[in-house]
């Protein structure tokens, strides 16, 4: 249904309620005209469209919500020539956001005035945050589709094929029976280390198990600022993380969040195996020594880079994903399907990492110094220097950012438009996990 012609693409100065001479039906027709234009790739705003007066007949029971319409417009702005745009637009028109707090808004000028309900609005006034509710739901659907496609094509055999899965479990059991070691601490770093140990066939104790007698429980860490970033990243890729700011403040009485409280982790393991069997590894560059690995393994022990926007997207996608797959599958899909897609996107769209906001830097240094002192006083064996836990303010790191809804929305739209998002995803080392 093509309308009678799109309006000029000049910038909208924003105006509402100037179409009073037209009736309700005329306004609905105008809105359906905009829907048709958006379907054809227009990036005209609703305000611009209202000035044009082009109308069309309804193509569905209800007009799409303001969030859906504005999201389509944003998609058209960046994906006009994309081969996947038309299908994506149809999906957006019929998508709903996940959760309790995101009602679909009606279009100002497309419904008559009434005494009830939320006031209709101009979609141009919606925030990026408002649009992310719908967009994240679509990404979750794509992840499930990509996962199913990968399973069907056999590229994720270790996950999908029952025979291979059984063999993998048997191998892990064997590795553990031989007496593995336990690796705990910084969640994102520990996950990478455990993954690498399993990948290279080294025995690893199952979670909660101290491992073979005589082997140390290795508590991995790094400077506290990086650990905080890593712990929230791990939480986002587990599913169900609060926002970055809220999570940073979640420790009781100004304490650091529990996953990065290495003093607590070491104390807990010390109670189980004795302090002499707890080995602290606060410097990632010395991890091969702590783990008795060749020096060349150092590169593979570095956690995968994820941008600030990428982590925040994982966090937002986890809620709708939880409605599509069982809870235990959610972590696997986030880490094995979304993570590689995010890393592939970084090739063409480099994006800064997550950092602790300036307002919290002094708190991080204070807490890191306290952690260093607590661990030092407990006299655990250490590979390296506990001073590595304290962020160096003079350290010239690449500048980082805190998550930003505009950047997250841009990333989301790129993923939704990417041809591979519907059918496949690149294989990664995580497939061996």
């Amino acid at each position, binding site marked *: 249904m093509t309308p009678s012609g799109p309006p000029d693409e000049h910038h909208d100065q924003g105006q509402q309620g100037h179409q009073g001479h037209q009736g309700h039906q005329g306004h609905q027709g105008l809105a359906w005209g905009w829907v048709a234009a958006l379907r054809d790739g227009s990036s005209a705003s609703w305000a611009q469209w209202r000035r044009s007066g082009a109308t069309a007949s309804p193509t569905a029971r209800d007009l799409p919500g303001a969030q*859906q319409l504005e999201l389509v417009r944003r998609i058209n702005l960046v994906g006009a020539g994309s081969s996947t745009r038309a299908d994506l637009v149809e999906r957006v028109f019929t998508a709903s956001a996940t959760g*309790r707090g995101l009602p679909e808004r009606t279009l100002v000028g497309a419904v008559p005035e009434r005494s009830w309900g939320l006031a209709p609005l101009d979609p141009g006034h919606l925030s990026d945050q408002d649009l992310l509710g719908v967009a994240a739901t679509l990404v979750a659907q794509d992840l499930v589709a990509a996962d199913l496609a990968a399973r069907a094509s056999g590229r994720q055999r270790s996950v999908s094929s029952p025979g291979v899965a059984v063999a993998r479990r048997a191998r892990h059991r064997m590795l553990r029976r031989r007496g593995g070691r336990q690796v705990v601490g910084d969640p994102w770093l520990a996950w990478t280390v455990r993954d690498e140990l399993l990948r290279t066939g080294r025995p690893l104790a199952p979670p909660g198990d101290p491992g073979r007698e005589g082997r140390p429980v290795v508590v991995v860490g790094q400077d506290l600022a990086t650990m905080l970033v890593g712990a929230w990243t791990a939480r986002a890729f587990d599913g169900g993380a609060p926002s970055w700011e809220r999570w940073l403040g979640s420790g009781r009485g100004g304490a650091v969040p529990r996953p990065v409280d290495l003093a607590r982790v070491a104390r807990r393991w010390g109670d189980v195996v004795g302090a002499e069997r707890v080995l602290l590894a606060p410097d990632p560059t010395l991890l091969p020594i702590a783990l008795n690995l060749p020096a060349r393994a150092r590169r593979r022990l570095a956690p995968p880079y994820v941008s600030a926007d990428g982590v925040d997207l994982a966090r937002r996608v986890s809620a709708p994903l939880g409605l599509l797959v069982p809870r235990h599958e959610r972590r696997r899909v986030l880490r094995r399907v979304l993570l590689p897609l995010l890393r592939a996107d970084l090739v063409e769209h480099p994006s800064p990492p997550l950092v602790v906001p300036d307002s919290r830097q002094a708190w991080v240094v204070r807490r890191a110094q306290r952690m260093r002192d607590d661990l030092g006083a407990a006299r655990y064996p250490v590979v390296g220097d506990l001073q590595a836990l304290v962020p160096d303010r003079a350290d010239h790191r690449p500048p980082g950012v805190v998550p930003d809804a505009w950047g997250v929305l841009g990333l989301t739209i790129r993923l939704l438009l990417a041809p591979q998002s519907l059918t496949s995803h690149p294989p990664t080392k995580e497939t061996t996990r």
Partner: protein
Amino acid sequence: MTRRVLLHVGTPKTGTSYVQDVLFRNREPLAEAGIRYPAERFDAHFLAALDLMNLPWGGLESEAIGAWDRLAEEARSHDGTTIISHEILAHASPTQTGRALESLGHRWDAAPGEQETEVHVVISVRDLVRQVPAEWQENIKHRATLSYGEFLAQVRDPERRSRVASWFWAVQEIPAILERWAHDLPPEHVHVVTVPPSGTAPEVLWGRFSQALSLDGVELDLEATRANPSLGVPETALIRRINRIANDRLAPPDYRPLIRETLAHRTLSERRDSPRLALPPDAHPWFVDVAQSWIAVVDERGYDVIGDLQELVGAPARPDYADPDDPDPRQVADAAVDAITGLALEAARLRAEEHRLHEELAAAHRALERSYLRPSYRVREKIVQLLEGSRPGRVVMGCYRRLRGRNSSSA
């Protein structure tokens, strides 16, 4: 026979739990009358509603995957009347209501006579004078800690920015719910059931539901087994204080049975003499004005009203209003004594259960020991030890275990 679906879409706190319980327990007599209530468990339609609306709900959502489509398929496969009922369906967005109606066989662009399925929407409604405090109380029973004053301020915020306000109006704003669910249905297919004032005999409300759901003339067991009891002012204030202290320490799977079920529903709701929750006198006129505007809209649309729309105005403001943000400390202390007693009784019941399980376990251990002492066991044990001592013996044991089809290495 015409295929008909009666879709009861809310609103919460209007006797819906009772209706669903009656329908679930009477599936057989209903089926004999050609009416189907397709549910294998009493909350089946709740799961379907979660699925339709993409709603996370404390982990239950993973049980809900695909539930709506299965429910719709059952409705479409029945040549008669199907009833679907859940109050949170009131929350559905236009996109979701469109999808739901289409999945039931209703096409938005078909003439009324050409519909595959004749869909009727039923909505039960109650005055805001009772609904507002009831919603706050429901929030408190779901771990919320916000005060009644904060709740009222959020609900009256015209932007409805908070989750509380967004949810409240989504499930309570009658004209909007009807617009979303029924704007393309003939008005005679939309049935508005009003809840009569407090003190009215329960049969009156059931009679209205019975009429709306076409149940008149069907012999049903109406004894209630499932209800959603309400709390008074000091009891709700007490739960809120408990939430503030215990939320961080009590996991959701423990909160539900201990606080909501044992404490709120089974202990504190039994206290009948404490002051009831109500609207504060200064907020009362605002909500009555809202109700009046809704009455005008519903009246104008010409729906089938069962009851009296004027009942939506509600009772006048209470001169003896008790503020749950500033409750009488003695009343709260009395409620706390009952709460401690209730929890102690529950702890005693659990201790008895623990004792019983210990006894059961000890009996199992004794039986196991007796079986070890039998001569036949000793002979078998010796044979196994003998075979495990040599390579050919181990091969024989391996074959035996494979034939048994399970690991008997511990034998």
